[in-house]
């Protein structure tokens, strides 16, 4: 109302007043314009300030939102980590019936053998020994293929079996169960297993440092003397040094005690062994062993072929075969890291005494068969060293020697031609080099100068491959 009046008043004034009044009105108009402009400016400033404030508030809100979402994603990541941590490792096991499949590995072996002597005629002079030395056929030869299967059976037992296949024959090398939960240092093994005597005896051939095993091992125990029976071992709780005591009992699997008549009650072989081992500093490790074995001779095939005689039969029956031995392993690696260089030394000594009734039959034409009481005390030893000089390359040297010891031929065996061993010391030198581009493949070149048979020197050359696939094998000492 005031406005209308002012306006009305202004119009009335403008109408009533003459030109002079007009100039006065212009000034006032200017004044009003200026005031309006000032008002506009002040409103502008205030609006701008408000707009700025709004913008800042919006930005702050946006920032708050982004840190909230960051916190959210961090929380969800943490939740994921916690979840996967609770579940275990990244690779989830397949939920299928085969999820409990055992560890399975296959070893492929073969090679090429060259020798100037026919391996089928080879023997070790002076030793009632194995029916066949462990020599391959000459030329290219597929060796053994070996499958090992193992797994925990349940909360108490572990099981493992090794089958070797060669030329249509499948051989059960080992098939045993082992306790996992007796505790107090005790382990019991049962079934068929390589005996824990010595060092080399329990090594499978694909783990050997040479293509073949030591001469004394071949002469007395065969490549791996095994027992069908039980083994009990105990490790002392000494922490700073390794002390193990063990005992085995059962039936011998094969040579040297194999018989055509396995059908007997009770134990036919028993062993005792003890090991002492440890570290010296960071770079050296060792193990000493001492052991003994006692076996009943049922009927033992013992082919002994002295020179000049062929195709006859010997058997040793009744009585006992006793063996005892010492073994030593030493390993060196700089700072205990075998990756680039390392050295391994093995030495074993064994003594065998046999007694029983020998039936020695070199053929009727020379007066056979001869039957009588027989005893023999013999021994043998070897030393071998292998030096790895590069991550992939190793070189090894080995010396074998057998001591014929003494025979005692009772009445009935006197005059048996060729039975008493000649004065001869079987010897052999071996050198090898092998290339292993990974833990799973090995290629070996080896030379043996074999003077274990009187009158001949057998120059033997071996080329060998050993490949493994499947589950990672164990690094045994």
């Amino acid at each position, binding site marked *: 109302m005031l406005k209308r009046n002012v306006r009305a008043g202004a119009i009335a004034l403008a109408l009533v007043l003459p030109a002079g009044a007009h100039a006065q009105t212009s000034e006032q108009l200017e004044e009003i314009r200026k005031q309006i402009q000032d008002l506009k400016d002040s409103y502008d400033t205030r609006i701008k300030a408000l707009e700025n404030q709004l913008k800042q508030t919006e930005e702050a809100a946006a920032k708050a939102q982004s840190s909230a979402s960051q916190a959210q994603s961090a929380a969800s990541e943490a939740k*994921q*980590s916690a979840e*996967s*941590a609770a579940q*275990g*490792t*990244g*690779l989830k096991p397949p939920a299928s019936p085969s999820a409990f499949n055992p560890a399975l590995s296959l070893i492929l072996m073969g090679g090429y053998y060259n020798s100037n002597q026919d391996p089928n005629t080879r023997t070790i002079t002076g030793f009632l020994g194995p029916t066949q030395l462990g020599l391959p056929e000459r030329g290219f030869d597929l060796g053994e293929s070996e499958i090992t299967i193992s797994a925990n059976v349940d909360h108490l037992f*572990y099981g493992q079996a090794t089958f070797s296949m060669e030329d249509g024959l499948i051989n059960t090398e080992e098939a045993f169960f*082992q306790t*996992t*939960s*007796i*505790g*107090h*240092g*005790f*382990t019991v093994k049962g079934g068929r297993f390589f005996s824990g005597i010595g060092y080399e005896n329990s090594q499978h051939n694909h783990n050997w440092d040479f293509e073949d095993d030591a001469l004394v091992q071949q002469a007395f125990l065969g490549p791996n003397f095994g027992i069908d029976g039980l083994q009990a*071992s*105990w*490790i*002392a*709780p*000494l*922490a*700073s*040094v*390794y*002390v193990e005591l063990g005992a085995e009992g059962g039936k011998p699997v094969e040579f040297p005690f194999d018989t055509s008549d396995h059908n007997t009650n009770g134990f036919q072989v028993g062993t005792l062994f003890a*090991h002492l*081992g*440890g*570290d010296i500093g*960071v770079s050296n*490790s*060792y*193990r000493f062993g001492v052991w003994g074995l006692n076996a009943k001779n049922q009927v033992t095939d013992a082919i002994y072929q002295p020179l000049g005689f062929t195709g006859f039969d010997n058997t040793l029956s009744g009585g006992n075969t006793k063996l005892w031995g010492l073994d030593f392993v030493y*390993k060196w690696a700089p*700072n*205990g*890291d*075998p*990756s*680039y260089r390392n050295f391994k030394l093995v030495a074993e000594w064994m003594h065998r005494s046999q007694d029983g009734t020998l039936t020695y039959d070199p053929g009727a034409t020379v007066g056979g068969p001869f039957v009588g009481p027989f005893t023999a005390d013999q021994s043998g030893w070897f030393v071998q060293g292998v030096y790895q000089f590069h*991550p*992939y390359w190793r070189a090894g040297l080995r010396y074998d020697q057998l001591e014929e010891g003494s025979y005692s031929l009772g009445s009935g065996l006197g005059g048996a031609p060729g039975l008493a061993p000649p004065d001869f010391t079987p010897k052999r030198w071996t050198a090898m080099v092998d290339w292993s*581009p*990974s*833990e*799973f493949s090995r290629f070996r070149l080896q030379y043996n100068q074999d003077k274990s048979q009187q009158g001949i020197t057998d120059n033997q050359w071996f080329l060998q491959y050993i490949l493994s*696939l499947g589950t*990672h*094998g*164990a*690094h*045994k*000492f």
Partner: protein
Amino acid sequence: MKNFLSLLSLTALVGWSGLAASAVNVFACHPEWGALANEIGGDRVSVYVATTALQDPHKIQARPSLIARARVADLVFCTGAELEVGWMPVVIGQSGNEKIVVGKPGNLEAANYVPLKEVPTRLDRSLGDVHPLGNPHIQWGPQNIQLVADELARRLAYIDPAGKAYYQGRLASFTQRWTQATKRWEQEATALKGLAVIEHHKELTYLFDWLGMPVVGSLEPKPGVEPTSSHLSELVDQQKTNPAKLIVITTQKNPDAAEWLSAQIKVPEIALPQTVGGTPGAKDLFSMYDDAISRLLAAEKPKS
């Protein structure tokens, strides 16, 4: 004589029980776990470490001394994820100790509590000696160490219930110090972000991932295979298109390949500790990270 014998047997009995009642015997496979066991276990644990930082954990053998130590262990503390598959199963199987069998409380595999990186989508040995469950060299991720520490404290409390409060106290102290240290390392190492490196084996992956350092190549042509001259020549060629600023190996490795490549592509090469004890400065978990980061920073900014 009778009195002497009974005194002797009494002493032996007391001595034996004294032995049993003392510390929790921890068999740690590697020095990082030994250090962590000392942090969390303190006076209540007696720690034996099976390997050193100068040994390749993939190549260890089940030697008698390890079996003897596992025989008396209450807790076996290893990485798992098949890092020790070549030797620990034999050590445990031969030890005659039922407490440390896999699955029992006395067997702790750190990798089970940590999200593993580089889980392979295809398992084949033609790709090298690949770790089937993922990269097990987890000691270089600070978050991993914390996760394992948490589980270790729980596990020690389970094995030794009387020490539960003690272990929790030590865990709390460790967690606080470790969190602070981790922040400090992240700040110190911002200069390393984006620095491209060539490694030897994948044993420092977690460190490079954490510090944001891309790995553009490795001296090994495939995991577990020694560097070959043809592969090293490939790396020299690669330097033109995808250059690395640094070659990083560990003090356990033979430096020949790294030194050759460094001379060829004019890029510095340094050696970090693989784990605790790998360098004089890496005395425990904290100083191991300190030492590694300071060596990386020194190489990134060489004195002019």
